[in-house]
């Protein structure tokens, strides 16, 4: 019972982890908090859902979800970051989130829509634990993405440019980093991750609503802070911890206690260790 809950927690948490990584990419590199990120994920989930319901295959659904999320991510970059002058991203991304959410309610209504996941009887048993095909797939995708993203950020030329930009914008520019290109690519990457997380959300919850992304988004932000802003690895670990905490709260306290531990945990971190578990203690003070 307990170990099965841990497994469920890890599954839920891997979704928070992925979205937290996409938050931390944009925030760490561009110093921008994209409050529409959760709503972008919702678009991916809804589109994937529609394709699956129409009899489309899972890869097709995943592809469409990623495509839509990248497009929306670039839309946010253009209308919320590039066009407005000054420090208004919080407001413009809030407005964009509101626009997206109401577009979904307009098109799909606010009822929850069934998500047709994988229907294979395949399962692995390890003593009393049972993993079905969906769960194995989700864990594999999360692990692969976390490793790939860490490598991308730490080893690749693009990653070096992203880190240069995050350290010092001016210095990066004079060293020949194409800031516009890195910005657009970072947003595209965060859209890609949101698209994958959207399909994962559908699989984990087995249904999607216009509000799915908002709820996941809030927790992903918490995971990002607890993990240490700017650290993809930290965001991943913290996301999984949050998932486990949430499932255990439901299991041992009751369903209405789902969120009662998660958010106070963040307030506690803000008081005691604002740089997060894996942060380098390099939190900008006001």
């Amino acid at each position, binding site marked *: 019972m307990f170990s099965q809950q841990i497994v469920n927690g890890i599954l839920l948490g891997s979704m928070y982890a992925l979205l937290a990584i996409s938050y931390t990419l944009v925030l760490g590199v561009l110093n921008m908090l994209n*409050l529409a990120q959760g709503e972008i994920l919702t678009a991916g989930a809804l589109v994937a859902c529609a394709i699956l319901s129409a009899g489309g295959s899972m890869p097709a659904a995943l592809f469409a979800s990623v495509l839509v999320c990248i497009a929306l991510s670039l839309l946010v970059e253009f209308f919320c970051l590039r066009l407005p002058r000054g420090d208004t991203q919080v407001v413009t991304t809030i407005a964009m989130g509101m626009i997206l959410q109401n577009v979904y309610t307009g098109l799909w209504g606010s009822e929850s829509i069934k998500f047709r996941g994988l229907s294979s009887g395949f399962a692995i048993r390890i003593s009393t634990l049972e993993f079905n095909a969906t769960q194995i797939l989700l864990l594999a995708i999360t692990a692969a993405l976390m490793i790939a993203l860490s490598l991308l950020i730490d080893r690749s030329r693009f990653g070096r440019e992203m880190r240069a930009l995050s350290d010092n914008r001016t210095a990066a520019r004079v060293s020949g980093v194409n800031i516009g290109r890195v910005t657009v690519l970072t947003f595209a990457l965060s859209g890609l991750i949101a698209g994958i997380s959207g399909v994962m959300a559908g699989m984990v919850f087995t249904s999607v609503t216009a509000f799915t992304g908002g709820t996941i988004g809030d927790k992903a932000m918490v995971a990002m802070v607890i993990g240490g802003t700017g650290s993809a690895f930290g965001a991943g670990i913290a996301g999984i911890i949050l998932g486990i905490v949430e499932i255990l709260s439901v299991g041992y306290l009751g369903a209405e206690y789902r969120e009662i531990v998660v958010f106070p945990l963040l*307030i506690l971190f803000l008081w005691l260790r604002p740089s997060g578990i894996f942060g380098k203690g390099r939190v900008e003070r006001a």
Partner: protein
Amino acid sequence: MNVYYTGLFVTFLINVLCALSVYVILKSGQISVGNAGFMAVGGYVAGILSTVYGLGIPASVAAGSAAAALCGAVVGIPALRLKGTYLVIGTISFTAMIRSIAQVLDITGGAMGLKGMKRIGILWIVIFAVLVIALLFLFEKTRYGLDVEAVAADSEAAAAAGVRVILIKVLSFTLGAAIAGIAGGCYAHWTQYIEPSDFSTSVSTMMVLPVILGGRNRIAGAVLGAAVFTILPELLRFASVWRMVIYGVLVIAIVIVKPDGLISGRKRHA
């Protein structure tokens, strides 16, 4: 006045209070996306005090406001020392936390909500709104108002000039939370029923947008924004959910075209 216009007028006043609660915090160069949380604290504390303990309406609303102010300090103090992003995330989480606490406690009625509050007279809501506006006008004329503008313009320069930056930021934040608490108390006693989902994150974000639309540098801007925010959905009633889409597009367009909002003029100090 018939019932429809009375309701619209009260909604307008509560929206004004909400907008001002965001305005006060914005004025000091910070942003809170958790004012629905402070509103919830004000609403629940006022509602419980008046239903369970039989406190009169103005006193219970004032007590709710004080409780919200206290929460403002608890959330604000750690986050204020950090850059704005943490404040945004901290305030969003605070709102979620308050919602989940209201969801499990018996005294708040859990998911069933809190009911049985006596109806607040419109006069009281008018008095609260006028009082808050008058106080803010007074504040802006004092030393505090100048300090706040200095902190917002350049907090390091302000600190160098002897302004106690942290104190000013905490004060502004606490004041904003207190105003949101009044809005919550009035709301709870006007609708006579509140439930946790009344105070969602999207309610918080809806409180920020009018201020940006109307103009974040002037009290009049916040009031105008609240008026637009109250009337526009009524005018666009035919558009059902799409009206919020129109509203969102309007806000982004304003930010791009007129970054200071509809009423822009920064006040000048000779």
